[in-house]
């Protein structure tokens, strides 16, 4: 079920430069199914800013009814969100969309999880679930620079982790694909979330592999009604288009024309 709920902030802190981790509590957590789903957040009760902001679910704790998001405070909306104090309420709509299919990886298999920047968060819950299932994840996490790296240790606890920064100030230097080219990992499936350029590079690099990509598109409703977030599909697909919000944000490689 999709709910709209005023959820209470139970944790909120800056975990890297302009990167915030916020934990919210409420009934909505009951319905969170797969990692890669997102919530649509109204950052202010006023008309400014007007639209909700889509943010991925980074981790879920069904026992405590808490879930966590990690976001970059950059534009108008996320900057306002960053001012919320513990104990205050945030208007959350969710859970929305279809996440990464855990069922596509079998116990004992090795998979790679490739994240770029604020695309990294949903991979954390994904990795936890995969590990629970007995799948072995290799994490390749790309960031711009040292200052904005986050969750490195948490990912390391779950499996092999390689961090790469564009400017080389932390971990390897280059892009996630640089690391993958060096590492040549042996794996069955890849899961990735990050800037479009990264998704393109991943599809090009692993044309023969099963892969699942999480897309971003500007959104209106977040529910599938407004046709704001439509992506053209490739010729191999039966439909002409998909909606990122309700058909995605995760799609198998080869579905979305990028």
């Amino acid at each position, binding site marked *: 079920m999709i709910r709209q709920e005023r959820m209470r902030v139970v944790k909120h802190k800056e975990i890297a430069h302009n990167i915030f981790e916020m934990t919210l509590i409420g009934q909505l957590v009951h319905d969170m199914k797969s990692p890669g789903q997102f919530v649509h957040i109204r950052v202010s009760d006023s008309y400014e800013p007007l639209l*909700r902001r889509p943010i991925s679910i980074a981790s879920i704790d069904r026992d405590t009814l808490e879930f966590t998001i990690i976001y970059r405070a950059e534009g108008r909306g996320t900057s306002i969100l960053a001012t919320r104090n513990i104990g205050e309420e945030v208007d959350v709509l969710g859970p929305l969309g279809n996440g990464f299919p855990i069922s596509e990886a079998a116990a004992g298999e090795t998979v790679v999880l490739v994240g770029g920047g604020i695309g990294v968060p949903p991979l954390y819950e994904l990795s936890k679930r995969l590990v629970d299932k007995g799948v072995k994840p290799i994490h390749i996490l790309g960031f711009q620079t040292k200052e904005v790296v986050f969750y490195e240790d948490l990912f390391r606890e779950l499996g092999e982790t390689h961090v790469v920064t564009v400017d080389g100030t932390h971990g390897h230097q280059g892009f996630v694909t640089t690391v993958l080219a060096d590492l040549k990992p042996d794996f069955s499936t890849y899961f990735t979330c990050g800037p479009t350029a990264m998704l393109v590079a991943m599809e090009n690099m692993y044309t023969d592999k099963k892969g699942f990509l999480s897309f971003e598109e500007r959104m209106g409703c977040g529910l599938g*009604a407004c*046709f704001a977030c439509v992506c053209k599909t490739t010729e191999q697909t039966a439909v002409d288009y998909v909606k990122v919000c309700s058909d995605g944000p995760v799609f198998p490689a080869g579905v979305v024309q990028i």
Partner: protein
Amino acid sequence: MNRLALELPGLSLKNPIMPASGCFGFGKEYARLYDLSKLGAIMIKATTLETRLGNPTPRVAETAAGMLNAIGLQNPGLEKVIAEELKWLEQYEVPIIANVAGTLTEDYVEVAKHISKSKNVKALELNISCPNVKCGGITFGTDANVAAELTAAVKAVSEVPVYVKLSPNVTDIGEIARAVEAAGADGITMINTLIGMRLDTRTGKPVIANGTGGLSGPAVKPVALRMVYEVAKQVSIPIIGMGGITTVDDVIDFMSAGASAVAVGTANFVDPFVCPTIIEQLPEKLDWLGLNHISELIGRSHR
């Protein structure tokens, strides 16, 4: 007595609240959130003869207290809308207003002829005002004669009352309203979006791939309200008012200005429960105003 019930040409409304075209798809998504039978009516997404894929993305951009969109009338086309979407909507007790769009007069006529035969379609809304498509749409909406001719042509084939949706991007909206009334329109819906633009400050290029988009949301309410007020003075057919409606007070304002019912667009994206919430709040607002029935609100600014 239902204090909110109203009769409009073709429409028996349980209440005057309906989602605006393009802001509610064909209802499926919102049906997951609440019972669509609560609504006064539903204005479905613009339907064209053929499938349309719409404009490239980004198609939406936020602005001060508003948003721009350039969806470009994406829809599955007449056949599928009738066979699948309208069919599916039959399970709800709610009249459907079918938003009809096209490039040529013939397209409109063809869509109108067929869609008006659907069981639950109780009225048509002629979209002569969409700013986001290359031809058709807004060209029909900015010239009174062209608008009148199209109205007459559609009226000739429609089996249900025809409402014409006016564009605010005109010098004299009253002129267009009078022209479509004279051409036989049963009602007017207004306003569609104002043409607007947002640039990426860094690159200087438009944020919306289409260049311009349609402005909607609270920002446009004063313009919409003024136009409803003006048109209400000039025509005697009913008006379904819209443009920035977000709260129950906004509904009161539009009806005071002369609207007989209202549509809620952008606000559905901000609060997906906005329509049922407003419907729930209306009786209490009537009490506050000391009114028995919602119809007493209509046009009270003019009295």
